[in-house]
Structure formats: structure tokens, C-alpha cells
């Protein structure tokens, strides 16, 4: 066993967090406010198509992908698990 240096731990982690957060804010101000796909397309030079109408979600939190596919995948997974369970 070894003795943990809590002060050193917090100082090191705190410094890293502040440094990374500072650089991140600079990057955000330089690149501007945009969605993740728009940011990626802009970074690599792909011309963005017409803006997709996105729902505002819950407090701005949105779910990616097609909701119908979630149901399809869920059903497929349940069936697969049942088959494996029965075969075992």
C-alpha cells in the first residue's frame, strides 16, 4: 500500500482541467457556435446541405438516429437473446 498525496492529486487534476477547459473555450470562440455535424463538415470542407429541422428535445438534449430503428434493433436483440437462452 502507498500513501495518497491528495493535495498533489487535486492540484494536478485541477490544473489540467483548467488548461484544457481554457483551450477548449478558445477553440469554441474561433470556430463559432454550430451543431456537431455542421462543425465536422465545416472542419473538413464539406458543404452542408439544407439545415435539418431538429426538435428542441428535453432541455436541448436530443436523441441521435431514427426512433423507428431503435425499436427494430431492440426487437432483434430480444429475439436473439431468447434464441441463445433457449439453446443454452
Amino acid at each position, binding site marked *: 500500500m*502507498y*500513501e*495518497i*498525496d*491528495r493535495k*498533489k*492529486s*487535486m492540484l*494536478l*487534476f485541477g490544473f*489540467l*482541467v483548467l488548461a*484544457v*477547459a481554457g*483551450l*477548449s*473555450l*478558445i*477553440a*469554441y470562440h*474561433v*470556430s463559432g*457556435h*454550430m*451543431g*456537431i*455535424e*455542421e*462543425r*465536422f*463538415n*465545416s*472542419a*473538413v*470542407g*464539406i458543404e452542408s446541405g439544407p439545415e435539418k429541422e431538429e426538435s428542441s*428535445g428535453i*432541455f*436541448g*438534449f*436530443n*436523441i*441521435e*438516429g*431514427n426512433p423507428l*430503428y*431503435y425499436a427494430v*434493433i431492440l426487437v432483434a436483440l430480444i429475439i436473439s437473446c431468447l434464441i441463445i437462452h433457449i439453446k443454452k
Partner: protein
Amino acid sequence: MAHIHLEDGAFSFQWISIWWTLAIILVCLCMYWMKNVKKSNDNKVLTIAGMCTAASFAIFQVNIPLFGGVHMNLTPLIGILGGPAVGGIIVFIVNILSAAIGHGGWGMIGANTLVNITEVSVAYFTYRGLIKAKLSLFSRAGIATLAGLLLGNVTMIVIILVSGIQGVTQSRMDILYGLSLLAGVNMGVAVIEAVLTGYVVSYIRKVRPDMLSEAETLV
């Protein structure tokens, strides 16, 4: 977290094949290695893998309204809890499921798996490497997360620069500049993920210390 958020067709078929092949080779190595682990730690490893896959997939599908929209996928936590071999398989499954629900292209699964395996492995080895530094568990996990996600972003940039993007006129230097800014923004989320991972690992240490010792014996 780093994730190549481009549609199918952005990379040429040649590069999609190369990244897929590399990813499959790595996943096969993980599975081969898992065969040995499975003999001794069957249920625990499977439970950790199942829990991490579900948590990672669920959180990865949420678009967080920060900096205009970002994602998390808990890859460093997967690395710390499961180790690189289990983690490699988990991120491959999460990428396949994500593509299946329409989040990311099928062609990008190989490249994204490589990016995520980098995050998982770097986080795991940093977490273990910092034991000698006598840091608290929270700090070790947090620093490992920052290191993993930083290297994940670097891998993402390298993969895109090497592959090139079809149909764009920007020079590689312009793309590098754009991707560096993107990685900078991604690292803002890494800070949140680092604090979250630190708390989760500290909490697990309190309530289920055996889950952490699991990872410490895996490699």
C-alpha cells in the same frame, strides 16, 4: 470523445476497407485474448462488459447541448473498468449498434473503432501507470480520461488526414486546422467526462471494489 461524424462516402472505398480490416484484426486479437480471461473470470467480465456496452451506447446517442452539440461515450471508463481487450470489443459493438440506428455511417465503423480503441487503451494504461505517482483514485481516473480522449482526437485527425475527404477542395493544412479546432471543442467535453469518470470510479471503489481490482488483473 472523438468520433468521426461523417457520412458514408466521405472516405474512399480503399480507406474504408483499410480501417475496417485494421479494426477487425484488433477486435480479433481482443477476442483471442478474452478467451484466456474468460476461463478465470467468466461472469464478472461478462457483467462488466454488458453494463459498459449498455451505458456507453445509451449516453452516446444523446446530443448534449454544449458548444452547439457534443457527444460522450464513456470510452475511458470502459477502459478503466474492463481493460483494453474487453473495451475493444465493447466499442466495436457500440459503433455497430450506433450505425444501425442511423448515428454514423457503416463505412465509418472501422475508423471509429480504431479511434475508440485508442481512447480505451490510453485511458487504461494511464490509469494503471499513475499508480506509482501516488495520486487519488479520482485524479487518476480523471487524468486517464483526459489523456485517453486527447489521444483519441489525435487518432481521429490522423485517420482523416491520411484518408483524405472525397470531393473537397480544401488543402490538408486547412483540414488539419479545422480538425484541430474541432478537437479543441471536443476536449471541452472531455473535461466533463473526466470529472464524471473520476466520480464513477471513486464511487465504484467504495461500493464494489472488486470491480476495479478486476481491471487491475486483466493485463
